[in-house]
């Protein structure tokens, strides 16, 4: 349990990244999210913009930062669909805020924590998307929860590779 709670000043410090990482990582996430399903078909169980939102929210430890980044990436995702603008925006906004709030309290470099966080937040995102579509928009929209579970698992696994890769780009004192 001690390994999950930050004890040292290093664990609580705010990670900083070069500007190009702040620009390129979200952009690459949105582009790949739109392009990879061409290769993988219906097996594209991933949500890369959500992963990037969670990563920066966890490491920046700023709920405002996580909220705004989630909103921008979610709106960009919505812009590529034919659905209403704001569905993924609301979901990613909430997930970004929660990830940053949790990131203050736990060690964010633990791979297990990262995987569990990604899994749980992806499921939460799916639940919010369903809520917005069915309740707020009143649309009859069906989805398979097995697919949502697989997407959450996919995000958990991809995060194990993506997060250490992004860790390498951070600015160290």
């Amino acid at each position, binding site marked *: 349990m001690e390994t999950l709670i930050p004890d040292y000043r290093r664990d609580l410090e705010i990670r900083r990244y070069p500007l190009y990482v702040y620009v390129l990582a979200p952009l690459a996430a949105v582009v790949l999210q*739109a392009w990879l399903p061409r290769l993988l078909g*219906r097996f594209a169980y991933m949500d890369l913009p959500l992963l990037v939102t969670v990563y920066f929210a966890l490491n920046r430890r700023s*709920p405002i930062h996580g909220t705004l980044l989630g909103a921008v990436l979610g709106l960009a995702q919505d812009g590529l*669909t034919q*659905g*209403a*603008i704001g569905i993924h925006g*609301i979901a990613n906004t909430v997930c970004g805020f929660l990830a940053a709030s949790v990131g203050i309290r736990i060690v964010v470099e633990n791979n297990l924590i990262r995987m569990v966080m990604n899994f749980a937040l992806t499921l939460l995102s799916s639940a919010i998307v369903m809520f917005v579509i069915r309740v707020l928009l009143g649309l009859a929209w069906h989805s398979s929860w097995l697919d949502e579970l697989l997407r959450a698992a996919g995000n958990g696994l991809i995060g194990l590779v993506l997060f250490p890769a992004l860790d390498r780009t951070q600015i160290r004192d």
Partner: protein
Amino acid sequence: MEFFLSRYRNLIVLSAALLLQVIGLAVQVRRPVTVAADVAGGPAVHVSRDGRGVLLIRLWAASLVTPFERVIHGSGEGLNGLWNDYIDLRHTKDQNKELQQTIDRLRLEQAELREDALQGQRLQAMLKFRESYIYQTEPAQVIGTSGSSQSRLIYLDRGAEDGLKPDMAVITGDGIVGKVRDVFAHTAQVLMINDQTSGAGVVLETTRIRGILRGNAAGQPQVINILADQRIQKGEHVLTAGGDQIFPRGLPVGVVDNVQRDPERGSFINVVIKPAADLQHLDEVLVITSLDAHLSAQQQADLATSEELKGAEAAAEAERKKAALEMEERLPGLKDPNAPATAPVLGPDGKPVVAPPVAPKPIPAKHPDRFSPGSAVDSPGNGADSGGANEAPDASGESAPKAAAPKAQPKAQPAKPNAPAPKTPQLGRAQ
């Protein structure tokens, strides 16, 4: 106040972000905007779901993402082309020769078919019946998707500058794909037929049942809201009905995969379709940009060549017929030219009388008995039909064949030991 703002700053920002987006959602569910659509031969109007602001967000998102997708797609295509065009060139020359021959043949066939189509259209115009034909298509590459499993949308590398407009039909050689939704300068969105918000008029080929095609949650197209019908079988072909004014009539959609009862309305069924086009792995598609007959210079030249060839073929056919007639006159027939010409027998009404067919004479029996044709019990004055050796004779022998005249002939001709045995009449078979 400052304390409140600083303490709850995070929550205030979160609430503001959520509130703005919820208001944005509320704005988007307003009444849809109707705008004019000038698709050649297509519908007069189409309904746009987006307002101006929403369209702007889509434009920004598409402008942000599609250039990179285009680069990625182009790089992949470039590597592929490098391999196919410069490295893997085995048998290319032979294939090229064969393909060139095929193209020449198909061009002429296409011209002939076009003639038929034009004739068909003229006839339809005479009958005041209008049907759309595909005359112009724009090939396009698929460069991306929506990235969301909730939205079956693809992006093309062609846009308004290439002549694409909303509500144009998108097809492949196998079947229909979807319709163009939003068009930007260099890209266009295509709503696929397996999306839950799509719609296309279709007809089942055999049963002629019509319905609306729409996607389900699993991403399969299905014909919805049709009454339960036992005639619908798995494997039946589904075609476009043409009533939606987007897809021309008769394009393949797919085949019936299974039939599911509508959970909400028991008497209705949903027919799940296996799409003819591979919607999961689309690379190249065709956008139908025109349904009017505008023949290109090449097509007009092919048409003229086809007409010339048709004239030459007709002349050659006439020559062949003429030569055949001449040959028929010169060749000896089956009739004996030296036989005397017989005058036709005229009846009382002056018309020629057709001679009755000659009844075959039965072969004499080797051991005649009272049942044999022409035996002693045969009553010569019997007028019954002698047709039959197949008829069972009665005790008086009234049904014995009449035509068996040489009754003593078998006895007068003793059978030779080496002579072949004469065939016996098939009398016993009827008994």
